[in-house]
């Protein structure tokens, strides 16, 4: 398994509301992401990446709305990877956050720990060539198709990055998951 892609069929209906909820959150909290979280070496302009990842213990209405909408996609991923082979399965979301990239904003190569899978929903992706880059175990970038409104799922150990953005604002919702057999 490398990359699974799922369509979120209600994307066009909920996109504006999710972005509005994120904007409201940004007004109440300092969401400028410290460069130490995303950059390797040179600092990026502090304003070029916004996120709630470094802000803890506050309500995030956009995540509540998002997970109500996409629960069936998480189940769908479980079915695609044959979790139901021996009976019922359960899933768990370990952590979730938004990340918003402005001009020059980027996130250096990294993995996600303490989970089985990384999921990325492209809430706002004006140019598909700026989708998340993923490195395969052969050290080469994995070729895959994804567009705004789709969610990708990849093994959490695969290196991935967001290259410096020059496409207009890009917004993702990312979350880490694990599956287990009941």
């Amino acid at each position, binding site marked *: 398994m490398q990359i699974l892609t799922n369509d979120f069929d209600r994307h066009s209906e909920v996109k504006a509301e999710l972005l509005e909820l994120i904007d409201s959150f940004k007004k109440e909290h300092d969401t400028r992401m410290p460069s130490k979280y995303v950059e*390797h070496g040179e600092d990026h302009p502090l304003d070029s990446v916004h996120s709630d990842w470094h802000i803890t213990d506050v309500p995030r209405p956009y995540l509540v709305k998002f997970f109500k909408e996409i629960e069936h996609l998480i189940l769908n991923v479980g079915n695609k990877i044959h979790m139901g082979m*021996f009976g019922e399965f359960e899933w768990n979301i370990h952590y979730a956050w938004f990340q918003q990239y402005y001009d020059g904003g980027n996130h250096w190569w990294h*993995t996600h720990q303490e*989970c089985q899978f990384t999921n990325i929903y492209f809430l706002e992706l004006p140019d598909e060539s700026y989708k998340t880059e993923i490195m395969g175990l*052969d050290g080469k970038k994995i070729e895959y198709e994804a567009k705004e409104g789709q969610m990708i799922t990849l093994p*959490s150990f695969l*290196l991935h990055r967001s290259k410096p953005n020059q496409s207009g604002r890009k917004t993702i919702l990312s979350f880490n998951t*694990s*599956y287990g057999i009941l």
Partner: protein
Amino acid sequence: MIIKHSVKNHSAHKDEILERIERFKSYYNTKMPSDYVRQTGERIHLDNVHSDLHVHDILKPHLDYVFTEVLHEPMDQIGQHLKLGKFNDFDWSVHNAWFQQFLPVSKDTPDAGGHTWHLQPGCQFTSVYFVDLPDSKYSIEVLGLNEKLITIDAKDGDIITFPSWLQHRVIPNHGTKNNTIIVINTSFNLTDANSNK
């Protein structure tokens, strides 16, 4: 993706680890409750599987030994396999680890010790160190996403590592001696990457 590592000086490590496990067993009730290894719904302590997974908040000298004397080389091998060395140094962390000992059929243990199909949530990888595997027939089975068994061919002294989301089981021990494994759940990342948890 299955990574196999043969532990150097395994026979020396084996003696030390088994001795530490036996000492641990003499202090604690290591008989494993059935809900850890079977899908019975009823929680009973089994005579045919011993473990420290259900024994919490105490020192586990057998694990200390594995972490300090055995684990660094295989973990480095996995990190290289993931191409993490391509950019910079990398780190790994252990989220959970435990021993499991599967007893064969005997007068006292009428059932063969085993562990039914399961996954390991909350980690990238599961590693199984075959500390004492007298008969390779009774090692583990790992199921691929095509629902077919992946050939493992593990032997005594091997560490097998696979993605934590692959279903796996320990084959019931119908041999004549104990099978002892140490299971280790891990994650990897670049040293200077601030991972999203």
